[in-house]
C-alpha cells in the first residue's frame, strides 16, 4: 500500500469518526470546526450538531409514534401500530416488575424512553456508513456522524440524567442521614472503617453512570469502526462482511438498549431501598 493511500485511509476513518462541531474556537470565534484539531481546540464550549440533531430527531420520532399509538389506544382489539407499541410497553413493564422493587410512577416511562430512544439511535447504525457523510458533504457540510450513541457525549449525557435521578431518589427515600450512613457504614459496619467504606461506596456510586455510558458508547463506537473498515474494502466485496456484521448488529442494537435500560432501573431500584 502506498504512503498516500495510507494517509487517505487514516483520513477516511478519522473523517467518519468526527462529529460536526459548533463552538467557540480561540482564533475563529463561534464557528463550525473544519478539522478534528479545530474541534478539540474548542474545548468544552462546543456542541456536536449532528449528535444533537439526530438524537432529538430520534426522540421526536419515538414521541410521535408512541403518542399516536397512545391517542388511538382502545381497550378493543389492537391494530398494527398499537399492537407493536403495546408489545414494547408490556416488555418494559414486565422488565420493571422483575427488577424494580419500590413504587415510583416515573420509572416505567423513564425506562420506556431510554429503551426506545437508545434503540432508535442505535438503529441508525444499520444505515450504510457513507450515505450521510457524502450527502452532507455535497451540501457543504464537512462532517456528519449520524449515530448519536457513538458519541460519548450522548451516552454520558443519558447516564448523567440517570445518575441525577439516582442521587435525587437516594436523598428523597433514605434522607440525607440515611444516604450518608449507607455510604459510610457499608460494606463494613464498623466506625474505624468509615473512611474505607466511604472511598469504596463513592467510587461504586460514581462508577455507575460511567459504566452505563462507556458500555453503550464502547459497543456502538467499536461496531461503527468495524463498519468503516469494512466499507474500505473493494465495493464488490463489501457485502461479504458487511451483511453478517449488520445482521449481528440487529442483536447488538437491541441488546445494548436493553442493557442500558435494565441497569438504569436496577440502579434506581437500589436507590429506593432502605437498609
Amino acid at each position: 500500500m502506498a504512503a498516500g493511500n495510507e494517509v487517505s485511509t487514516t483520513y477516511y476513518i478519522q473523517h467518519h469518526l468526527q462529529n460536526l462541531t459548533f463552538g467557540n474556537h480561540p482564533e475563529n470565534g463561534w464557528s463550525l470546526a473544519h478539522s478534528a484539531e479545530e474541534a478539540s481546540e474548542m474545548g468544552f464550549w462546543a456542541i456536536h450538531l449532528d449528535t444533537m440533531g439526530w438524537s432529538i430527531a430520534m426522540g421526536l420520532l419515538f414521541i410521535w409514534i408512541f403518542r399516536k399509538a397512545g391517542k388511538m389506544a382502545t381497550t378493543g382489539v389492537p391494530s398494527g401500530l398499537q399492537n407493536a407499541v403495546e408489545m414494547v410497553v408490556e416488555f418494559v413493564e414486565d422488565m420493571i416488575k422483575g427488577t424494580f422493587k419500590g413504587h415510583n410512577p416515573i420509572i416505567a416511562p423513564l425506562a420506556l424512553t431510554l429503551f426506545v430512544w437508545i434503540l432508535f439511535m442505535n438503529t441508525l447504525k444499520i444505515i450504510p456508513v457513507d450515505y450521510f457523510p457524502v450527502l452532507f458533504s455535497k451540501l457543504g457540510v464537512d462532517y456528519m456522524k449520524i449515530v448519536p450513541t457513538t458519541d460519548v457525549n450522548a451516552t454520558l449525557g443519558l447516564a448523567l440524567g440517570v445518575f441525577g435521578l439516582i442521587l435525587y431518589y437516594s436523598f428523597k427515600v433514605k434522607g440525607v442521614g440515611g444516604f450518608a450512613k449507607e455510604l459510610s457504614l457499608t460494606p463494613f459496619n464498623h466506625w474505624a472503617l468509615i473512611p474505607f467504606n466511604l472511598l469504596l461506596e463513592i467510587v461504586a456510586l460514581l462508577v455507575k453512570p460511567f459504566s452505563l455510558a462507556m458500555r453503550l458508547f464502547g459497543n456502538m463506537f467499536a461496531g461503527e469502526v468495524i463498519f468503516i473498515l469494512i466499507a474500505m474494502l473493494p465495493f464488490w466485496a463489501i457485502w461479504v462482511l458487511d451483511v453478517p456484521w449488520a445482521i449481528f448488529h440487529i442483536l447488538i442494537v437491541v441488546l445494548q438498549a436493553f442493557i442500558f435500560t435494565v441497569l438504569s432501573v436496577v440502579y434506581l431500584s437500589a436507590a429506593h431501598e432502605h437498609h
Partner: protein
Amino acid sequence: MNINMTLIGQTIAFAIFVWFCLKYVWPPISNALHERQKKIADGLDAASRANRDLELAQERAEQTLRESKEQASQILEQANKRSAQIVEEAREQARAEGERLVASARSEIEQEVNRAKDELRAQVSYLAVMGAERVLEASVDEQAHRKLLDELAAEL
C-alpha cells in the same frame, strides 16, 4: 472524542423526553392495556360462569325429561287400568241387561201362555157345552150345568 456541551444538551433533551413520555405517552397506553386486561379477565370469567350455567341447565333439563317420562308412563298405566275397568263394567252391564231381557221375555211368555190357557179354557167350556148339546140333542140348561162345566174347565 471531545467532551463538550453536547453532554448537557443530551441531558436536557433526555429530561424533556422522559417528562413528555411520563405525561402524554405512558398513561393512555398503560391504561388501555390494563383495561383490556381487565376486560379479557372479565370475559373469561363470564365464559366460565356461562359454562357452569349451561351445565346446570342441562342437568335440570335432563331431570325434567326424566320426570315427565315417569309421569307419562304413570298416566299410560292409569289409562290402561281405567280402560280395563270400563270394559269390565260394560261387560257386566251387558250381562245384566241380557239377563233382564231374558227375564222379561220369559215373564211375557208366561203371561201369554196363561192368557192362551184362559182363552182355551173359555173355549173348551163353550165347545164342551156345544158338544154336549149336540150329543144330548136336547137343550141342557146352561145355568144348571154351568158350575159343573166351570169345574171341568178349571181342571184343564
